[in-house]
């Protein structure tokens, strides 16, 4: 087949390497700034099965770096929009899409059918869930993360190598580290880091030496400097993860690996009629919730509108992705409004809940 000729004629790859590539099954979690270049190169190289997990929809502000999408993808789910673009690029591969949020309930199940996991998410919480689930399921994780003009790449859990927790043992307690939508990012940086992740995936598939296991590659886009820092495996951290495997397997609700006490999942929202719902998004933000009966108080107005917040009902705050609403919970608690929780899945969680109710 002429499609793969340029890589097959590399003596280090050959037809045997190409066969490995076409047998490989790779799960890419997050089809955003990192996920797009990862998916694009892996699909082009002919990775036989690609899984794409993303619950989010394409917005105009994504187009500056999320190169699989165009104007015609706006409003579409990212996993589905990515699939249709990738099948045009390479119709010979198989693509599975998952439009739910990757969480502690579905993580093990999703990982099981794949050989390699690529972490292209944009938040610490999901990164720790990916790490723990991959340790339990013994899957290598190709990790990439960015901050402004800098990026990090590593491969965790490769042939019993160190995991993310061996480097950073626990989820940062406070929301001390802002994400791209709050702080900004240069589009090419996610392209560079995502492409490095795709390269690590191919190195693993092709059984090349020099996989970035136990090594954290740090790249600075302004100085063009790369520093590779070595780190060791921590047996106690790995044991901590494997010990709690049963909790995750049973979908252990509030005892899950990373659900903190100021959050609730839409799955646990039983008596929605007895709580006060507060939308802390700006009025123009999508998606809109149909038949919404709760309050709308944009986060920036919250402190001046405290008298509207219920003191005797549980207050459930939500925003787009559960970050601002978490800050809102902290703010309300500072003002002694204690019985408040942030809806973890944000507005999308409420929409799902409405769907479940409609379906009976």
């Amino acid at each position: 087949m002429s499609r793969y000729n340029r890589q097959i004629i590399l003596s280090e790859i050959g037809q045997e390497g190409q066969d490995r590539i076409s047998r490989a099954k790779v799960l890419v979690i997050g089809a955003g700034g990192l996920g797009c270049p990862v998916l694009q190169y892996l699909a082009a190289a002919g990775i036989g099965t690609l899984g794409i997990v993303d619950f989010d929809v394409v917005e105009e502000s994504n187009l500056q770096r999320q190169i699989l999408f165009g104007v015609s993808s706006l409003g579409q789910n990212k996993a589905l929009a990515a699939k249709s673009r990738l099948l045009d690029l390479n119709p010979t591969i198989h693509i599975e899409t998952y439009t739910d949020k990757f969480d502690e309930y579905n993580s093990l199940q999703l990982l099981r059918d794949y050989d390699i996991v690529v972490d292209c998410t944009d938040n610490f919480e999901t990164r720790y869930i990916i790490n723990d689930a991959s340790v339990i399921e013994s899957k290598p994780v190709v990790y990439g993360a960015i901050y402004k003009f800098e990026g990090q790449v590593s491969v965790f859990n490769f042939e019993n190598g160190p995991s993310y927790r061996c480097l950073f043992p626990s989820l940062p307690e406070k929301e001390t580290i802002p994400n791209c939508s709050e702080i900004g990012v240069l589009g090419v940086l996610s392209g560079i880091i995502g492409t490095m992740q795709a390269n690590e995936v191919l190195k693993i598939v092709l059984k090349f030496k020099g996989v970035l296991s136990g090594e954290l590659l740090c790249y600075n886009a302004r100085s063009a400097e790369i520093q590779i820092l070595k780190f060791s495996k921590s047996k106690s951290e790995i044991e901590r993860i494997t010990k709690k495997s049963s909790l995750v397997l049973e979908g252990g609700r509030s005892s899950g690996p990373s659900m903190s006490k100021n959050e609730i999942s839409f799955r646990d929202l039983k008596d929605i009629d007895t709580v006060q719902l507060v939308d802390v998004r700006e009025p123009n933000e999508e998606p809109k919730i149909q038949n919404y009966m709760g309050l709308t108080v944009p986060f920036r107005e919250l402190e001046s509108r405290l008298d509207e917040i219920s003191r005797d009902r549980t207050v459930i705050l939500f925003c787009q992705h559960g970050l601002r609403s978490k800050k809102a919970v902290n703010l309300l608690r500072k003002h002694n409004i204690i019985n408040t929780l942030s809806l973890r899945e944000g507005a999308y969680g409420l929409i799902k809940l409405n769907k479940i109710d409609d379906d009976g």
Partner: protein
Amino acid sequence: MELQIKYYGMLAEISQCDEELLNFDGTTGADLLHFLIQKYPSFATKDIKVAQYNQIMDLGNKITSSEIALLPPFSGG
């Protein structure tokens, strides 16, 4: 001893430089972090790894290299 300290990510924003030369009187990685928190109090709220000889070190170990890198976790994607 004089240390050349390199800061990654938001640590460089707090220190307002990518690298700097500092005189350090302590012994271990933990001493160094403690020393830097005096200089940059908001380092105290960050999860910081210290590396010497391109190796992330146990904070209890002695600093023997004159070139040190400090890095926080990144989450963006």
